[in-house]
């Protein structure tokens, strides 16, 4: 097919608002298509399909959210049609709604933010049922006993071998680290208080865990860097921990053409103050650091007012949330590996803390000079559901819209955040970077997020004329257009037309198969045999995710050279 004459934004290839044709053949962008349909895109905005680098879309935590929140299931109900299965849920949609709603937004790829190795079968069962989009999952490594022991011993070779094994066992794509050390401490109800607070019974610090995992990650030449949820997330004053964490790894270099560390949902880690009373934004300090250092990236973790379901491997945080808010509380500690918590909550405009949190996310994006360094996310559904991405995009593009929102918020906001003073308005190119080009680059997905020759033919056409429309003034129109794509082309197939789903292709599941020297693989094997014999509650032979659970894989090779 040929998408003719659209106004194309393909920042990876330096194209920012050029009228051009996109030719597609066999699911890929080609120089010139020999045959096929023509879509007349003249006067419309054309971008690569959206790429979501961090959302909780599949697995045990998400399903716990569904099970404990029937009140959420009753929202967002859409009946079945000839083509579509029913949709349910707002913050925790059912699997079909996940796929349909991403597609309608013009997204074509989404990655599950955190899967514990032993429960990855469940993650993949859900991923398999999400239609249309390509997907993957990041595997949790920040609290596994084997990781803690390797980090304690400084044995990076063995750690790399364990990561290789863990990615295969979970069919995972990258190394996710959440509150390193804290998840293990939570096993007996504790937590870690900072980078140098040793993990009980393991004689290793979060600093050592992070550094070791980063070194092993680079040794393995993995497509993505370590993806980190910092210690002390959610606590007033935690920006100090965030900066300390970054400084702690400044000396580590990336083995690939990408960042060496990605810090996720930075909004939750950019807090000043000493308590909730003097809580304030430290986004300027964080953004300043990122402006001065090119080897780090982050994503926003923007708040959306209304209902949210927090779900994270930061279990002690969730317990604290539940106590503070008197909310229902689910917890799930996972033997030898991780912990997690799920707590529903509501973000209110007149709640001073929430209003400041909302401002912080936007501040971070507007103060970071290069949009390549900061992705647009809401840490779905922690900050808010992904269906609200157009809200965030238009807030970034329109100062008048921001002013209108700020006027509805608690009066403390201007005292604790400088958002109201920021005039910057992102343009189409910067939005295309934050939602397509940068997430693909940061994840190391070479064929995603751009429309160069050889890229996957994932193309979105929005009902917007970049020449005529002013996103600063007409933000309502822009939001509406971003909410329902005029066309979503996935792998060369039209999946959405005028906001309606017209086709349900099956997406692929990306996972990384990394090789390591046999010697180290054997040492890990010996440790695993020991752990399964003594500590796990299941047999080693039943542990790995089997082929039956990943029926449309996209295997990315990596490994120690």
């Amino acid at each position: 097919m040929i998408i003719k004459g659209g106004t194309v934004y393909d920042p990876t290839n330096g194209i920012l608002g050029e009228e051009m044709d996109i030719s597609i053949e066999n699911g890929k962008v080609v120089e010139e298509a020999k045959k096929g349909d023509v879509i007349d895109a003249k006067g419309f905005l054309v971008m690569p399909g959206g790429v979501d680098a961090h959302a909780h879309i599949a697995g045990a935590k998400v399903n716990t959210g569904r099970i404990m929140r029937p009140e959420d299931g009753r929202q967002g109900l859409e009946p079945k049609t000839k083509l579509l299965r029913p949709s349910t849920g707002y913050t925790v949609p059912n699997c079909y709604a996940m796929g349909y709603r991403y597609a309608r937004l013009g997204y074509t790829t989404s990655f599950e933010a955190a899967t514990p190795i032993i429960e990855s079968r469940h993650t993949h069962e859900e991923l398999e049922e999400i239609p249309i989009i390509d997907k993957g999952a990041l595997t949790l490594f920040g609290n596994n006993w084997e990781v803690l022991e390797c980090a304690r011993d400084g044995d990076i070779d063995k750690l790399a071998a364990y990561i290789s094994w863990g990615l295969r066992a979970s069919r995972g794509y990258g190394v996710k680290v959440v509150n390193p050390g804290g998840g293990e401490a939570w096993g007996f109800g504790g937590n870690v208080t900072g980078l140098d607070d040793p993990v009980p019974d393991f004689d290793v610090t979060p600093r050592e865990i992070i550094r070791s995992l980063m070194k092993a990650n680079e040794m393995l030449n993995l497509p993505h860097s370590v993806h980190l949820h910092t210690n002390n997330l959610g606590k007033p004053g935690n920006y100090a921990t965030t900066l300390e964490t970054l400084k702690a790894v400044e000396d580590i270099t990336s083995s690939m053409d990408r960042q060496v560390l990605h810090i996720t949902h930075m909004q939750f880690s950019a807090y000043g103050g000493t308590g909730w009373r003097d809580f304030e934004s430290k986004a300027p300090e964080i953004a300043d650091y990122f402006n001065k250092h090119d080897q780090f990236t982050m994503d926003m973790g923007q708040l959306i007012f209304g209902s949210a379901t927090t779900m994270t491997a930061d279990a002690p945080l969730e317990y604290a949330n539940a106590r503070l808010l008197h909310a229902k509380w689910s917890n799930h500690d996972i033997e030898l590996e991780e912990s997690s918590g799920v707590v529903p909550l509501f973000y209110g405009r007149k709640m001073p803390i929430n209003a400041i949190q909302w401002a912080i996310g936007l501040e971070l994006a507007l103060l970071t000079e290069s949009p390549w360094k900061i992705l647009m996310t809401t840490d779905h559904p922690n900050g808010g559901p992904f269906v609200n991405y157009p809200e965030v995009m238009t807030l970034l593009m329109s100062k008048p819209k921001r002013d209108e929102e700020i006027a509805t918020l608690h009066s403390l906001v201007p005292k604790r955040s400088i958002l109201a003073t920021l005039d910057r308005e992102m343009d189409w190119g910067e939005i295309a970077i934050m939602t397509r080009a940068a997430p693909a680059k940061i994840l190391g997905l070479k064929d995603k997020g751009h429309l160069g020759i050889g890229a996957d033919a994932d193309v979105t056409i929005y009902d917007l004329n970049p020449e005529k429309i002013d996103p600063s003034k007409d933000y309502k129109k822009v939001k509406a257009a971003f909410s329902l794509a005029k066309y979503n082309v996935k792998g060369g197939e039209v999946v959405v037309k005028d906001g309606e789903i017209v086709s349900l292709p099956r997406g692929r599941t990306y996972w990384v198969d990394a090789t390591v020297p046999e010697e180290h693989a054997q040492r890990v094997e010996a440790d695993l045999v020991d752990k399964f014999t003594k500590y796990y509650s299941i047999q080693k032979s039943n542990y790995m995710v089997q082929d039956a659970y990943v029926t449309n894989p996209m295997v990315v090779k990596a490994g120690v050279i």
Partner: protein
Amino acid sequence: MIIEDVLCPFCGCLCDDIKVEVEENQIVSVKRACRLGSSKIRGHERIKAPMIREDGKLVETTYEEAYEKAAQLLLDAKRPLLYGWCSTVCEAQKKGVLLAEELGAIIDSTATVCHGPSIIGIEEKGLAGSTLGQVKNRADLIVFWGSNPSEAHPRHAQRYSSNSQGKYTPKGRKNRKVIVVDVRKTRTAKNADKFIQIKPGTDYEVISALRMIIAGKGDALPEQIVGVSKADLEEAAEMMKSARFGSFHFGLGLTHTRGRYKNVDNALSLITDLNSHTKFVVMPMRGHYNVTGFGQVCAWETGFPMSVDFSRGMPYFNPGETAACDVLGRRETDAMLVVAGDPASNFPKAVVEGMADIPVIQVDPFENPTTYLSDVVIPSAVAGVEVEGTAYRMDGLSLRMKKLVDSGYPSDEEILENILECVRRRQDDN
């Protein structure tokens, strides 16, 4: 040939270390399984062929005819109910949900006569839980409340709880204290360090009293609380608060008695209270090996874990209105498909009466009282023995069941796929 690390298809323990010896496609011996699992794996007499009831008699027929008849009966109904699901694998459960969607039927699992109230309790309060390996490695205090694993989950104690050994519990039973609360002294109670006997239907009051004591408000309590001494409860509370890691396992003693989900709600709240003092986890002792699996599949597909009514074209969930016993009890159901369940035996007889005058289709390997009420009987392969597939353990961990022997029978998944095809063809014809 010995097949190692077989998963047992009986109870929610989902033990995965069973050794099965197979000779010439026959199961010859089963090692390590408890009496329940061993019996299931070894097998029982099977329904030989599909049957359709004609003039009162069940007459043998072909699978194709049975599928057609089943599809016709379900399509002719206005309010069909698809029930069972817990003794089969997720792959079959998924087909069940799809069939319910396309028929506009109600789908419900055996959870609604078992731990359904636990699900409702979790919807009120959440579940502060963990995987079973955490209990094995860390728990120095274990509470069984209204649960009798000695009879219902025989290997639980040794593999996961009271007698298990782990990293922080190398001495096994000696590293632990076990508290049992029940209305009678069960086998489980005999192995307890502390047994508290309560009167039937008083769990809610006793839990409330415990919570008061734990919150330091015990002075407001009388010396006797519904027949239990305050001193006894104070001792139990002290054992719980001073544990390093406590785990609380509850069973039908909470879900089947007066109060039902409110008992569970209170127990879940107790655990949350305890977490202010020390680390505590709670988990329901799920009965069947894949009842948890149905809840998971149904939740990610429909947003709700059980009792889902598709008659509006989208999922509607309201146990008390849409559960199997509700609709059968109100005589609203006018056709029923039973897969991997035996409602005739397990529902109150007054509810089973609702099955007597409606067409019933049974998909099961084994004959049982539901067969006496069935109009179409379709024998299936035994999941976990003759069919591989996914199951979820009581703590939510998913594992893959193995296929040990071939059988001539189609799997539940295959049968449902066929019925679905017949339904779709008939719907297209109209």
